[in-house]
C-alpha cells in the first residue's frame, strides 16, 4: 500500500507574525518558513507504517510556490520516497487544495492519505475532510492513534470530551493531532540522500483545477491588543484585587 502525505510550507511556528501596516496581509518577507508541524507528524506516521511493513511507499505532495520543494526535501530527508510539487503562486484555499489532491490520488492510488489536522497559517482545519468528501472516502480526523488491521483502519480521535475510536474502510483519509507521535529529525546522511530523491512537478491545470479563491480577503488587522497589567507582591494582595478591583471572585 502506498501512503500519500500532503505537506504545506508555512511560517515557522516560532515566528510571531506581524500584520502589514496597510492591512493588506501579514509580513512574509525574510521570515523563516518550515513544514507545517502537523504535517511532520503525518510524515512520521507514514514512515512508521512503512517501517512496520504496512506500507510500501511514502509519497509527499506539496501545493505552493517553487520554494515548497524545500518542504518536500524535508519530508524526503525524514524518509519519504519521493515528492510531487504542484506549483502555484499565491493563496490556494483548502477547497482547491482538496481538488488538486483528488487528482493526485487518482494518479497515485494510495491506500491512505495522511494530512495535518490544521495548517498553522490559515488555521482552517478543512482540507482532509474536504478531500474525503470529494473522494467519497471515510475520514479519521484529529487522530492520536492509528492502526491498520485486516485492511481496515482503526483510529482514536481527540474529541471535545475525550477520545473516540472508530473503524474506517480502506482507502481512508486521516488527519493528525499533536499526540499521534513525535516526528524524527532528519540525519545528515539522510539529508544528503534526500537530494537525490525524485520530485515530480505538476500544475493545477494538470488536474483541471481552478484555484481562484472563493473568499476575498478585504482586510487583515492586528487583533485587539491586551496590555500587561501589574505584578502583585503577595497572594493576599492578588485575592483582594480579584475581589474588589476586578470583581471576579
Amino acid at each position, binding site marked *: 500500500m502506498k501512503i500519500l502525505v500532503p505537506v504545506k510550507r508555512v511560517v515557522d511556528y516560532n515566528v510571531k507574525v506581524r500584520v502589514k501596516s496597510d492591512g493588506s496581509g501579514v509580513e512574509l518577507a525574510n521570515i523563516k518558513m518550515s513544514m507545517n508541524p502537523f504535517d511532520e507528524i503525518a510524515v512520521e506516521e507514514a514512515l512508521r507504517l512503512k517501517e512496520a511493513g504496512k506500507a510500501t511507499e511514502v509519497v509527499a505532495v506539496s501545493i505552493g510556490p517553487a520554494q515548497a520543494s524545500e518542504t518536500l526535501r524535508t519530508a524526503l530527508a525524514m524518509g519519504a520516497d519521493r515528492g510531487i510539487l504542484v506549483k502555484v503562486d499565491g493563496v490556494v484555499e483548502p477547497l482547491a487544495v482538496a481538488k488538486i489532491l483528488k487528482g493526485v490520488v487518482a494518479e497515485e492510488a494510495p491506500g491512505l492519505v495522511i494530512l495535518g489536522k490544521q495548517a498553522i497559517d490559515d*488555521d482552517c*482545519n478543512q482540507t482532509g475532510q474536504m478531500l474525503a468528501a470529494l473522494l467519497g472516502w*471515510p*475520514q479519521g480526523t484529529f487522530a492520536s492513534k492509528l492502526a491498520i488491521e485486516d485492511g481496515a483502519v482503526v483510529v482514536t480521535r481527540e474529541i471535545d470530551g*475525550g477520545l473516540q475510536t472508530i473503524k474506517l474502510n480502506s482507502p481512508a483519509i486521516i488527519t493528525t493531532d499533536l499526540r499521534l507521535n513525535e516526528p524524527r529529525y532528519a540525519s545528515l546522511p539522510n539529508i544528503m540522500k534526500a537530494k537525490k530523491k525524485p520530485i515530480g512537478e505538476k500544475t493545477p491545470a494538470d488536474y483541471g483545477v481552478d484555484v481562484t479563491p472563493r473568499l476575498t480577503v478585504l482586510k487583515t488587522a492586528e487583533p485587539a491588543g491586551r496590555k500587561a*497589567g501589574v505584578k502583585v507582591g503577595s497572594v493576599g494582595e492578588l*485575592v483582594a484585587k480579584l475581589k474588589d478591583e476586578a470583581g471576579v471572585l
Partner: protein
Amino acid sequence: MTTLLLAEHNNATLNGATAKALTCAIALGAPVHILVAGKGAKAAADAAATLSGVEKVLLADDDSYAHGLAEPLADLIVSLAPGYDAIVGPSTSLAKNVLPRVAALLDVMQVSDVMAVVAPDTFERPIYAGNAIQTVKSTDAKKVMTVRTASFSATGEGGSAAVESVAAAGNPGISTFLEEAISASDRPELTAAKIIVSGGRAVGSREKFAELIEPLADALGAAVGASRAAVDAGYAPNDWQVGQTGKVVAPELYIALGISGAIQHLAGMKDSKVIVAVNKDEEAPIFQVADYGIVGDINTVIPELKAEIAKVKG
C-alpha cells in the same frame, strides 16, 4: 431565506456551544432552523426549541447519528441543504469534523472560526494563532461556516419553536463507531466555565495536577485547563488543552499556573476578561497578557492562594 444551525448535544442535553453559535447564526439576518441529529435525541431537540429566535427545530433521530460519524451526518446535512442559504455550526470537534465535508460536497469554501459577522457574506476570522484577524467576503452562493464560540455570548431562552422530524439520509457504511472514553466530571465544561484554572509543564506530574491544580479549581467552582506541554507529558487529559489547536476559551477569570505563554497557548485564552499568571520567571511572556501576575513558585503560591480564597469565600 434560511440558516441551518447544527446543534452540539449529547442526546439528553444541549451543549452551551449551540446557543453561542445561534447568536452568530441570527446575526446573518435570516430565520434560523436548528438541526438536532442523534439517537434518542428528543430531549435535546426540545431544549433547542426553547432558544429564543429559533423558527424551527429539525430532529433527525437514527442509529447512524448516534456517535456523530462524519460520513452519514454530512450526507444528512447535504440532503437538507437545498432549503438553506447558510449552514452553521459551533467550532466543536463534531462540527469541525463534519462541516468541511459538507462544504466540499456543496462545492463551497468554508469560513472557519467566525468571530464576527460584518455582513451576511462578510466575516472576521483569526489566522496565525489569532495574531491577525482577516475580514473575508464569501463569493459562494451558499455559506458554510463554523463559529468561534468564545467570541459570542449565548442566546437566551424564551422561544417555543416546533420540533419537526426529518428522515435519515442513509448511511454510506464506510465507517463504524467502536468506543468512546468521555471524561466524566462534576466540574463545569471548559468552554462554558466562568473561571478556569490552568496548569503547565511546571506542575510536573499527574499527581501534582491532582494535588495542586484541581483542588484550587474546585475551591473556585472552576474548570481545569492545561497547556500542550502538560497534556503531552501526560499530566492532564487531551480535552483539557487550551490553545490554537485545543479549546478556545474566554472566561471571566483565567488563572495560568506555571505556563510560559507561548503564542499557541495565548491563542486559546487571551480573550479572557481577567488573566492571572503565576510563574517563577518574571520574563515569561504570559505576563504580557496578564492583568495580575505573581512571580513565584507555584508549589508555594497555589496553597496560599487556596487558603486566601477560602477566607474571602468564607
